[in-house]
């Protein structure tokens, strides 16, 4: 259940990573900063008495702005996309500390989005996976709709063939800025949900976010395919859940004296992404022989 809860909470992030990495072909590391940004904004807002649901919207807006900064650095200032996103990510570390005023912030005893669910009689144990599941499916449906609008088509074409879509009169700079913004808005919502379910926001909670997001997208694609946009979105969300299940499984694994600790996660995730990226190519080589 814990893995489901995390899988759905990170689902927003993974959908966002799918947008930038797959649709826009824009490797965006900003999420490492915008996820804790969302957590910080949400935690500070709730502590100040703001409704937890409204705090999600504030997180979304904050993440959107952070993503737009990356987009603007890339398109208007001509900084390489990867570097632009790293710059924003680094800057966000300081900004997140400023927002919270300290490295971490607990939400113990404060209201969260889970309260309405638990007060209806559902146990805390089930409430988070249920609510986050519903939220992330709503987000998935919204993205499915968005990708089929004229703007969504322009977004897909911007990633696939920039010359073509420019020739059709679309300003690709604007498309990139808005899409990277949206992606980071989603990452920030993930951060806000995580901080509310775990009861704390931490400035370091974003380390390795992009790699985890990427791993989820790739795991989903490998298992469920990505023939159509709808399928790819669903694969991304399910990939997020399966990735978290796999992590939980790895952590419970015991090989004699040896067992994995949470600090090994980054190494495991990196290895998983390398394997997922290289295996299809290797398999093709072997089959050709």
């Amino acid at each position, binding site marked *: 259940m814990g893995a489901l809860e995390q899988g759905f909470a990170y689902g927003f992030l993974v959908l966002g990573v799918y947008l930038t990495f797959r649709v826009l072909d824009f490797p965006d590391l900003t999420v490492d900063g915008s996820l804790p940004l969302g957590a910080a904004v949400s935690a500070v807002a709730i502590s100040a008495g703001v409704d937890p649901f409204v705090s999600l919207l504030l997180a979304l807006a904050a993440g959107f702005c952070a993503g737009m900064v990356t987009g603007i650095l890339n398109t208007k200032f001509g900084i390489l996309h990867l570097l632009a996103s790293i710059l924003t990510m680094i800057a966000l570390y300081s900004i997140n500390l400023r927002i919270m005023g300290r490295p971490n912030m607990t939400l113990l005893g404060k209201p969260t989005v889970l309260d309405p669910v638990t007060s209806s009689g559902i146990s805390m144990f089930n409430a988070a996976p249920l609510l986050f599941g519903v939220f992330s499916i709503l987000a998935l449906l919204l993205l499915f709709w968005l990708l089929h*609008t004229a703007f969504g*088509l322009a977004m897909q074409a911007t990633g696939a*063939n920039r*010359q073509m879509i420019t020739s*059709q009169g*679309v300003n690709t700079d604007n498309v990139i800025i808005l899409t990277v913004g949206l992606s980071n808005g989603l990452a920030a919502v993930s951060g806000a949900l995580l901080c509310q379910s775990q009861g704390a926001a931490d400035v370091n909670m974003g380390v390795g976010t992009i790699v985890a997001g990427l791993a989820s997208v790739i795991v989903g694609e490998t298992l469920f395919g990505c023939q159509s946009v709808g399928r790819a979105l669903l694969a991304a969300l399910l990939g997020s859940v399966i990735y978290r299940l796999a992590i939980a499984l790895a952590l419970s694994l015991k090989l004699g004296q040896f067992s994995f600790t949470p600090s090994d996660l980054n190494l495991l995730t990196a290895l998983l992404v390398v394997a997922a990226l290289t295996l299809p190519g290797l398999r093709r080589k072997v089959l050709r022989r």
Partner: protein
Amino acid sequence: MIEIKDLVKTFHRGSVNEVLALSGITLKMRKGDFITIIGSNGAGKSTLLNCLAGSTGIDSGHIVIDEEDVSRWPEHRRSTWISRVFQDPLLGTCGSLSIEQNLALANRRGRSHGLGRGVKRSDQEIFKKQLAQLGLGLESRLKDKVGLLSGGQRQALTLLMATMIRPKVLLLDEHTAALDPKTAHQVLSLTQKLIKEQHLTALMVTHNMQQALQLGNRLIMLHGGRVILDVSGAEKQAMAVEDLLEQFYKVRGEEFVSDRMLLV
């Protein structure tokens, strides 16, 4: 009316590799002109088209379309009035989108791409009719990804997309050069048909002199970034490939007929 005034473009300015690609091109195009452009490699043909479309910036000069100076307009804004078909069949269409989605994008050229439905039901019937006139059977494959189509089919689709919203100028940059002879012929007749039906103003770059003489009402020869020959109407009709070659030799005797210069 489209006017190109004293267009200058230098690549790698200030370095040892400096190349003067366009050295003051002036050209007046009347509405309905179908101009073919020939010239040896490096004459500035493609650069001229890129400067018109806005994908290459210019050093000096003006591009005026219907009394509006568009020289400083960014490429996406110019595409409201100027559409183009590239030499590479992969460039004009988006392979990961379906045929109808590509057409829907082209159907909005110059308008905002907002949050309305991308492919509207009412559009599908129109798309089918337009695809049917290509005679390639694409009208029954609206949902197919464009990446599945052949180069010729993609080029035909690009042509359709470039003319769906009537452009003030249609730019064709050797758009049949990457196709096999039979497909090239089909795409060329489609080009002629579309230009004739819609009375389009068009500029077509080609390496095929026969083609340059057969098509269009006006022919321009570029060399060293300058217009060295500009014939139209009856004068063009009377010309033969030999006359063009003679012109070529006149400006520079050697190395005109490069391997890309086809006589047939």
